């Protein structure tokens, strides 16, 4: 897969590798797979490039674009871009400490694709570790931790060199790395390592991270002077200029098309300004008084040329320099802590102290405090008090001993959800350290989830280890909750990136791992190559297999006790026979792992209906959010939503694009029209000409006419019989799209056209287009012809000759095509209509044309070979060899050239046209960690809404915003009140009349009753009065065409009604009628 593209340089020590290899690892189907792990006491010495800045390597020999496997990494490239990925590919990272946290960090980094990762651990695997490290199995107990991980880690990405270090780590060894991460190191040693890293030339980025029970903390030091090249990962903002004043300071106004997103102090550059051309010098300028559509410029433009028109402003993103403090200074003077939960604003300083006290305890006692031991807790608190006394002006006035006690109790445990959260955070910090992309964490971050503890008091006996893999978790939550986790019935919807992480988490936590427990996972998708860079349960030999099945098998290897069933059904109204009432009623909790709002809304509706907790999450690049939907406690997912995505206006896309997105939207729709819709239409006609003709005659409108014209064109004038025909077609399409249409448009609206109000027609944001002159020596023109003719040939089942892939040969073929000179049409339609005016009835002209077209079509179909059919092409963005993206990028870029819009490369085109959702492993893993902290609460039961947390996080900034969920809206009517979670139940097989009376008895006048999207009754429709004495259940069956399963005893209807007294709308609950 990747080995072809990247040279793997590590030595292989087969003997030792075999010694740690798990049997299950040898299921490889591919002979050529290269195991590149080096297992050795000493790390192989890696060359350190001299051109290091900030400890990051820069490609000194220029760009090597081929080294990024774009099919594999497309979703991640959409977040980072090529430059960051290349820097990542050049970075060597150390991860020290391989419990759950180390494993999560290493997994995220191997998936992201660093050059090498070295695993350091001197300890051996214990049963205890199985609760958080998903690489370990019971057979690994007694083996060195790093050695037990290495092969499974290596499997995730062969392009990364994974090595181990099982002996003592001297600080001099750190010089081989650009970034080092310590997950289990004493403060004493950390100070020593950090001192070395901070003062190294170039500095080595140092990260120290710990998770202890429900508490976690990170510290980052990227050196005395670290350059951040991109502080937020957002595209530079732009604006289209409407006017610029000759003034001091100058005022710049932009078109009111989109709000400007500049901030005071931003640097911008001007381009394309006409008149005041002095601004086009490329010099960065600072802005102030940034408003939604204007800003001022700190510049005197009084003597500049007068602004005429045009112009674009683009934000210039500035690099930022951060001066990190070394650990020894930062411990004493930690500066501002990054806050995550405003209800715990005073907690970070306390946790800062707690982690130091724990370090002191371990140092003094040589062990962790025991779970549930009051004595150990008091000892640790005493250390904390001591430390606090020595803090000088940083000293805390008072602190919550209860929190410290819980910290002490659970401190030995690494909980999987905490490891997933901090693994995501630290993974991202390493990427930042290696690339300069995104703003680093500066410098301490602490987080706890004490609310995850069960509500009822925990007896010390609950914490007793049972000598099984969940002992660490039991030491925090007690064995009672552990049993609840194991017996849970859970439904995970989706088995993609989030789904894989959830399965791993649940397997480690022991959720659904008893014979009573049951985990159902469903996904109708199959594995594609682009999934592999973050959906870590999949391997390249799984490509094409069902996601849910492969993921379930992999999760069972993590914990063989996992009781899981994998299904391939899309969760939608069509599969309610599979996911029936009995299934839903059996569930304890539902976890969404979806990638689209429609499916989320559907599952939300089901959970609302069956009153099941729904744990919802989603990611977008470095951002993630989680939302808890708990029956009766919180609002449901659908109760609040984001505004729908803005779409470009039709007229803009049709004729007046002003950015590449508009061109790509147009290109996508042309692709669909030419290659999918019209061939489909042709086939519909050919498979039953008579039915087709009569349906077109029936429709009789302009659209039917247009369809017929396209079909006829395809079968008659434009029909292709040889590849040369396809080249001709492609050439004529080029002429039509990029020359003729532009000539027509600029004929209709000349450059100096003015609107009725006298303003120039071609004013911002509209851009005046110019036709392209085809040239066989322009590679982009030839690329377009090549992609278009190959795809055209595919639709006509014409074999593509080998020469079609050589630009030179395509150029020869295209030169043979005769292209006629174009004459713009002058009011053609008016002429046609003049003829039609004499006809009396409406739309008769269309009918006549349609009839004529059908006759022609029937004529021409006689000439076709029998059984002739076209092959419609469905757009597939992820195949680099199918020419789809080449064609779309070609279409979009040629159009961009018409309008002087900057062109984009194929990859960027793919991101936009393919609507590729940027995705990375770090934020995904973190999101599932946050959700699993909530899962403890949902399964334990008894928690109030104040215990639950929703999260929004952006690892790029970094930003954490954690808050209580929103309460459901309560509706009050007379002496009643209800929320969306309530339902009104009627026992009895009511008629419509009875139902209306039942409501009237409550003082409600119903004006509309519906089932799904069908109207059963509306008081304004006389016809519905006939339904009064019908049973509501029969109306649901007949009108709404609902099939009621034999076992179901009720139907639900939505009733819109008013208060009879004041006529105000009352939003009543869903009404369930139990008809038998």
């Amino acid at each position, binding site marked *: 897969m990747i080995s072809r593209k990247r040279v793997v340089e590590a030595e292989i020590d087969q003997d030792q590798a075999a010694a740690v290899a798990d049997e299950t690892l040898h299921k490889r189907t591919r002979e050529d797979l290269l195991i590149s792990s080096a297992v050795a006491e000493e790390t192989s010495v890696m060359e350190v490039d001299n051109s290091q800045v900030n400890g990051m390597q820069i490609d000194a020999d220029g760009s090597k674009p081929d080294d990024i496997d774009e099919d594999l990494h497309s979703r991640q490239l959409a977040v980072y871009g090529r430059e960051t990925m290349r820097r990542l590919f050049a970075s060597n990272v150390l991860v020290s400490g391989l419990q759950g946290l180390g494993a999560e960090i290493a997994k995220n980094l191997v998936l992201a694709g660093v050059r090498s990762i070295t695993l350091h651990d001197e300890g051996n695997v214990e049963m205890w570790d199985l609760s958080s490290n998903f690489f370990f199995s019971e057979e690994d107990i007694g083996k060195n931790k790093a050695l037990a991980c290495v092969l499974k880690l290596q499997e995730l990405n062969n392009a990364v060199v994974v090595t181990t270090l099982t002996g003592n780590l001297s600080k001099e060894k750190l010089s081989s790395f650009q970034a080092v991460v310590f997950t289990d190191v004493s403060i004493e040693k950390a100070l020593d390592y950090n001192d070395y890293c901070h003062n190294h030339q170039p500095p080595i980025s140092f990260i120290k991270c710990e998770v202890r029970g429900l508490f976690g903390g990170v510290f980052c030091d990227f050196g005395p002077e670290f350059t951040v090249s991109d502080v937020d990962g957002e595209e530079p903002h732009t604006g289209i200029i409407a006017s610029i004043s000759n003034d001091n300071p100058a005022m710049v106004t932009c078109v009111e098309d989109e709000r400007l997103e500049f901030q005071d102090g931003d640097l911008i550059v001007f381009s394309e300004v006409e008149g005041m051309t002095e601004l086009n010098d490329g010099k960065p300028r600072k802005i102030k008084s940034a408003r939604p559509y204007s800003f001022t410029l700190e510049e005197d433009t009084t003597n500049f040329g007068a602004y005429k028109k045009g112009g674009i402003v683009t934000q210039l993103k500035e690099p930022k320099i951060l001066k990190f403090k070394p650990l020894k200074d930062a411990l004493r003077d930690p500066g501002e802590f990054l806050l995550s939960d405003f209800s715990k604003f005073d907690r970070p300083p306390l946790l800062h102290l707690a982690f130091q006290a724990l370090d002191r305890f371990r140092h003094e006692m040589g062990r962790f405090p025991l779970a549930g031991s009051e004595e150990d807790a008091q000892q640790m608190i005493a250390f904390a008090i001591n430390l606090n006394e020595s803090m000088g002006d940083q000293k805390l006035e008072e602190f919550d001993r209860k929190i410290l006690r819980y910290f002490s109790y659970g401190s030995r445990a690494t909980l999987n959800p905490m490891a997933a959260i901090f693994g995501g955070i630290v993974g991202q910090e390493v990427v930042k350290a290696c690339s300069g992309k995104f703003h680093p964490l500066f410098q301490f971050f602490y987080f706890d989830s004490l609310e995850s503890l069960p509500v009822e008091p925990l007896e010390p006996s609950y914490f007793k280890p049972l000598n099984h893999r969940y002992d660490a978790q039991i030491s925090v939550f007690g064995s009672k909750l552990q049993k609840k986790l194991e017996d849970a019935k859970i439904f995970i919807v989706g088995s993609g990136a989030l789904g894989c992480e959830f399965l791993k988490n649940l397997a480690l936590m022991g959720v659904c791992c008893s014979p009573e427990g049951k985990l159902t996972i469903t996904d109708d998708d199959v594995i594609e190559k682009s999934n592999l860079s973050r959906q870590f349960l999949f391997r390249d030999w799984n490509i094409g297999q069902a996601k849910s099945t492969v993921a379930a098998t992999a999760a069972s290897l993590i914990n063989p006790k996992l009781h899981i069933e994998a299904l391939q059904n899309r969760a939608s109204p069509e599969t309610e026979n599979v996911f029936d009432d009995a299934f839903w009623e059996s569930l304890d909790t539902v976890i969404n792992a979806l990638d689209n*709002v*429609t499916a989320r*809304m559907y599952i939300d509706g089901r959970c609302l209906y069956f009153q099941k907790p729904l744990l919802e999450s989603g990611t977008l690049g470095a951002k993630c959010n989680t939302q808890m939907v708990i029956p009766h406690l919180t609002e449901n997912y*659908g109760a609040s*939503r984001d*505004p*729908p995505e*803005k*779409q470009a*206006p*039709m*007229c*803009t896309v*049709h*004729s*007046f694009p002003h950015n590449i997105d508009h061109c790509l939207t147009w290109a996508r729709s042309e692709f669909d029209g030419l290659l999918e819709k019209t061939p489909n239409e042709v086939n519909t006609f050919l498979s039953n000409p008579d039915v087709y003709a009569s349906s077109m005659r029936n429709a009789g*409108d*302009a*659209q039917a006419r*247009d369809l017929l014209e396209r079909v006829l064109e395809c079968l008659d004038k434009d029909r292709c019989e040889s590849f040369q025909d396809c080249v001709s077609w492609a050439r004529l399409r080029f002429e039509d799209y990029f020359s003729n249409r532009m000539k027509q*448009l600029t004929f*209709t*609206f000349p450059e100096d*056209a*003015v*609107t*009725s109000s006298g*303003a120039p*027609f071609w*004013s911002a944001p*509209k851009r005046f287009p110019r036709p392209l002159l085809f040239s066989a020596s322009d590679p982009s023109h030839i690329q377009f012809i090549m992609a278009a003719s190959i795809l055209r040939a595919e639709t006509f089942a014409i074999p593509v000759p080998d020469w079609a892939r050589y630009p030179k040969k395509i150029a020869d073929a295209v030169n043979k095509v005769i292209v006629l000179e174009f004459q713009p049409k002058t*009011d053609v*339609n*008016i002429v046609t*209509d003049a003829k*039609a*005016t004499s006809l009396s*009835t*409406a*739309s008769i002209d269309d009918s006549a044309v349609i009839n004529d077209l059908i006759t022609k079509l029937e004529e021409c179909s006689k000439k076709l070979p029998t059984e002739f059919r076209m092959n419609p092409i469905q757009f597939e963005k992820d195949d680099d060899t199918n020419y789809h993206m080449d064609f779309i990028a070609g279409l979009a870029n040629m159009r961009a050239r018409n309008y002087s819009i900057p062109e984009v490369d194929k990859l960027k085109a793919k991101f936009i046209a393919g609507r590729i959702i940027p995705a990375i492993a770090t934020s995904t893993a973190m999101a599932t960690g946050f959700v699993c902290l909530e899962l403890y609460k949902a399964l334990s039961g008894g928690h109030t809404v104040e215990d639950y947390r929703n999260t929004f996080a952006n690892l790029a900034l970094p930003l954490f915003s954690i808050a209580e969920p929103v309460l459901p809206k309560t509706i009050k009517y007379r002496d009643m009140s209800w929320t*969306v979670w309530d339902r009104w139940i009627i026992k009895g097989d009511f008629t419509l009349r009875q139902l209306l009376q039942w409501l009237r008895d409550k003082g409600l006048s119903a*004006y*509309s009753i*519906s089932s799904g*999207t*069908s*109207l*059963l009754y*509306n008081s*304004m*429709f*006389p*016809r519905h009065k006939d339904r009064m004495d019908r049973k509501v259940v029969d109306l649901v069956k007949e*009108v*709404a065409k609902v099939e009621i399963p034999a076992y179901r005893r009720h139907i639900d209807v*939505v009733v*819109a009604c008013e208060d009879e007294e004041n006529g105000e*709308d009352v*939003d009543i609950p869903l009404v369930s009628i139990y008809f038998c």
Partner: protein
Amino acid sequence: MSSPSKRREMDLMKLMMNDYKVEMVNDGMQEFFVNFHGPNESLYQGGIWRVRVELPDAYPYKSPSIGFVNKIYHPNVDEMSGSVCLDVINQTWSPMFDLVNAFEVFLPQLLLYPNPSDPLNGEAAALMMRDRPAYEQKVKEYCQKYAKPEDVDATQGDKSSDEELSEAEYDSSDEPLVGKPD
């Protein structure tokens, strides 16, 4: 504003309460037709259009899709598909708007004040800019040919057996525009 789940019902009801003639197909609430009268004082006065309204799943968060069924000559209406390029309907839609706003305010405004700078029917826009009398003539011709009340009623009878009449007796007077906040 009431619960979004009942917005379709409420919007439909409000349309009918405002004396719009609504024609439903098989009692489905996702797609229906509404008769729309050319506003007074506009070139379109006296014409009647069947307007197809589609309510997406995410309505009212997502805008309704609105298209003219019988032909109309207008710079911002696609001649072939009848699609409307109107920012309040397409780009700046808000869940606070409803169908009555669309029919009482947005569409009348569009017909009263065409915007030739953002044309969907380029030819109509160009003609409006270049030769106003010819443009006006053509708008009226289209009205007479394609938007006659008797034809609109006839098409309905032909095409749908499930026609609904609003209870209030339908009258052909164009209600003057009520000043509604946007």
